[in-house]
Each structure stands twice: as C-alpha cells, then as structure tokens.
C-alpha cells in the first residue's frame, strides 16, 4: 500500500480506486445537462450532426472551399478540440462549484476535476459515430489506422486532466481565472490548425506551431481520419510521455494546494 502513496503512483491509483464513482458522476453531469429534453443523451450526437451540416453548408456551398473533403478535415479536429476546451473551462469552475463535496466530505477533490474531463470524453465518444457517418458520406478512405484512436484518446485524457488541474486550483483563490479561460482557449484555438491547414501557414510558423503538444495531438486525429496515414510512432511515444508527465505534475500541484480549499470556498 505504501507505494500507492508516492507522488508518481498515487495519481493513477486514485483513478483506479475511484473509477466507478468517476464514471457515475460523469454520467450524472450529462444527465443533468440534458435534463428535461426529449432526446436526452441523443443530443450528444445531434449537436455535432447539426453543427456539421451548418459548417458544411457554410464552407462548401457559400465559401466554396476547394480543399478536398474540407468538412471531414474540420470535424476530425474540432470534435477532440471541443472535448479539450470544454473540459478545461468546466474544470476551472469545478472545485468552487462542488461546494459541500469539498467542504463537508472527505472525497478527494481531484475527482471533481477528473469528472469534468471524463464527462466531456463521453460526449466526444458519442459524437464519433456521426464522424464516421460523414467519412462514409464523403467517401473518405478509412483503414485499420483508425484503430489507433483509443491510444490518442488516452494521451489526450491525461494531458487534458493534467492541464485542467491548474486553472481548477487557481480559480479557488482568484475567481477571475474561469473568465479568462475562455479567451485563452480562443487564442489557443487559432494557434492550432483546425480551421486551416498547416500548409497554409508561413513555413517559419509551421514548425513553431507544433511545439504545442495539443497542436500535434490534433494532427494525430487528422492523420488517422483525414490523411489516412500512421502518425510518426516516435512522436506518438513522446506525446504519450509528455501527457503522463503533465498529468503527474498537474495532479501533484493540485494536491499540494488542496488542504486549504475548504477554507476558501
């Protein structure tokens, strides 16, 4: 048991120990999001579908974007981006809005942050069938490479959670943080080739932009869904290590500050 308390293992042990609670709380988030609606969970699929139709109409019919299968490119990138940015923005407010869960129970506070990432992950997973529908519709070639998706999702889960711990912590002390997150996310969005292609950038920026691990992560999604090529294995491995390290650092940072959370909420 002593090993599990080490700063390197505890972040993963907690995921294992509380996996069922995390799962149940994440489903609760979605249930509450869609409460009272006729379609319920179906909205997690309907929303991306309707978005897809609007953007396809806009880009293909109005702007006559000539890039091949542009909607597929856009959507294979924007869906995981939405998972990332919604998770971070919701996590920023998660500790403060958890209230009695922090001030009156002994539940590890890390869980409320992780739950935000997982509930948005479920949301993303529900939108994947719609993406496949579009792949079929645009006759995009899909191969076994798509099997890499779970690996990329795991990488994104750890990197997103690791990052989310920082705004979640800061927002306890300064409630401004959650407001500024939206602007930061918007800025980050335009720094990543999601709406545009990296080839459209001036060459000197093209390299620069991939210093951002999230940009490279999104590129992996483009590779497997749109370009139908295998992401470079050594970079995928590097990305995996980065995500684990970011998760461990974020978790321990949050952990080191959480003793005083109950006094600030």
């Amino acid at each position, binding site marked *: 048991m002593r090993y599990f308390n080490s700063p390197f293992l505890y972040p993963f042990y907690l995921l294992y120990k509380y996996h*069922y*609670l995390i799962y*149940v*709380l994440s489903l*609760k988030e979605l*249930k*509450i999001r869609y*409460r009272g609606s006729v379609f319920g969970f179906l909205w997690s699929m309907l929303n991306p579908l309707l978005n897809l139709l609007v953007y396809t109409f806009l880009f293909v019919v109005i702007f006559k974007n000539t890039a091949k299968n542009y909607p597929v490119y856009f959507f294979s990138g924007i869906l995981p981006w939405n998972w990332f940015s919604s998770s971070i923005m919701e996590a920023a407010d998660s500790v403060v809005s958890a209230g*009695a*869960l922090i*001030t*009156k*129970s*002994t*539940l590890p506070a890390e869980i409320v942050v992780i739950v935000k990432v997982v509930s948005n992950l479920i949301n993303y997973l529900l939108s994947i069938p719609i993406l496949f529908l579009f792949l079929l519709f645009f006759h995009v070639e899909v191969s076994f490479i798509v099997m890499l998706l779970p690996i990329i999702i795991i990488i994104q889960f750890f990197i997103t959670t690791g990052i989310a711990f920082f705004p979640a912590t800061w927002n306890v002390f*300064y*409630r*401004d943080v959650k407001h500024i997150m939206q602007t930061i996310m918007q800025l980050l969005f335009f720094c990543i080739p999601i709406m545009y292609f990296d080839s459209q950038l001036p060459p000197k920026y093209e390299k620069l932009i991939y210093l951002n691990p999230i940009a490279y992560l999104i590129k992996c999604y483009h590779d497997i869904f749109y370009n139908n090529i295998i992401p470079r294995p050594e970079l995928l491995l590097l990305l995996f290590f980065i995500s684990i390290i970011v998760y461990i650092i974020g978790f321990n940072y949050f952990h080191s500050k959480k*003793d*005083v959370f*109950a*006094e600030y909420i």
Partner: protein
Amino acid sequence: MSTVVEAKNVTKIFKRHTKKYFSIKSAFIDFLKHGRPEKEVVKALDNISFDVISGSTLGIIGRNGAGKSTLLKIISGIIKPTYGSIKVKGSLVPLLELGTGFHPELTGRENIIISGLILGLSKKEIYKKIDEIIEFAELKEVIDEPVRTYSSGMYSRLAFSTAFSINPDIVILDEILSVGDIAFMKKSKERVKEFKRKNKTILFVSHDLNSIKEMCDEAILIDSGRLIQRGEVNKVIDLCSSIVV
C-alpha cells in the same frame, strides 16, 4: 480500550483578509495603494487536547460559532490544524450534512448510489444495501422519481438512510438526528444506538441537549474555541446552560 481519536494542542487560526478579494484586479489595485494587505487573525480553536476511547460516544456541545464544526472538520481531515496534531485510528466517516452529493434532478435510486459512493461505500456494498436503504427510508413507491418531487421530509429520510448505510469504525454526526416525523426520528435514534451496540466510536454534536443526554457517555464543552470542560454528561450540560443563559 484503546484511544482512536487523539487531539493534541489543536489550534486553528483563520487569516481573514480585512477585505476579501475574489478578483485579481481589486487585489492588485489595493496592493498598489497600501502594500501587502493586513490580515485579521481569528482563533477558531485554541489549544484543544482530548482523546476518545474506542467504542465510546462523546458529545460535543457549545454555542453557535464556538468552534464545534471547525473541530469536526479538523478531525475528519477536511481542513488542517494550524498547530497541533490529530491522530485517528481506523476508518472514519464524517456526516456533517445530510445529502452531500444529492442532485434534485436525479432519482432517489441514483442519488443513493452517488451519495453512497461519496461516503466511501464500494460499488458492491451499495448494490447489496440499496433495497435495505429504500426500505428504511419508506420510499419504495417514489424511489424512481426525481428527488425534486420529494417533500423535504422524504428528502431527509432518503439522505439519512443513505448516510447510515455506512460501516466505519468512527462516525462523526453533526446535528443530523432531527429528521423526518416523530416516528422516523425514533427510528433514526435507534440506528445510532445500533452503532453504539456494534461498539463503534461516535462523535456527536447537537443543540438538542436531551439527545446528548440520551446518547452520550461523556461530553465536552467548547466556548470561543477553548475546551471549557470535559466530563460526565449531566455536569457538562449544566455548565453549558449556565454559559448560554
């Protein structure tokens, strides 16, 4: 007879900013004008030491704002003492509020599962106990309805039954016994007594001095963050009454 909870010179100081900032802007402007903000120091607990023997029931009494809840939170590990130390042996579940984690839009059944998991029950234990919990709460007919449709009595009954499905060595009860109608209150007191019979250690806070008398072996009186007296229940209660009045 071993000591399961040991508090040694526990002091808790809250530093309250004389002005409370919740934004960077106002903190920054004030910093420019006046330098580092002055802090007002509030001693919520002042050098409290006591121990609790396994299997005993200790009542904690005192006026509002005397520091009882702070003490319970420190024993639970939710907040840390500024000075001193707390030692707890065995599993401890604090019931500082009924229905922590409840959401009005979810059904009674869903809330039992979430709340039970939050209290530290395993998935297996919950599904084993859920029928018993529903039975005890007397809510069989409405258990799959959203909790927002419940009356406040039904809500408290559900919360109470869920909370008392736990099975720790030490349990902390903060003012949660006066729930439901008279029949249910009787039932819930019986539940607490069952805990006693199972030789569990109970820390019990209540303003209802009669239930303190009924439940506790011993009591401590806290006032303005200081431990005034510890001893036999009736004596401590008499002293408490003289302070309050």
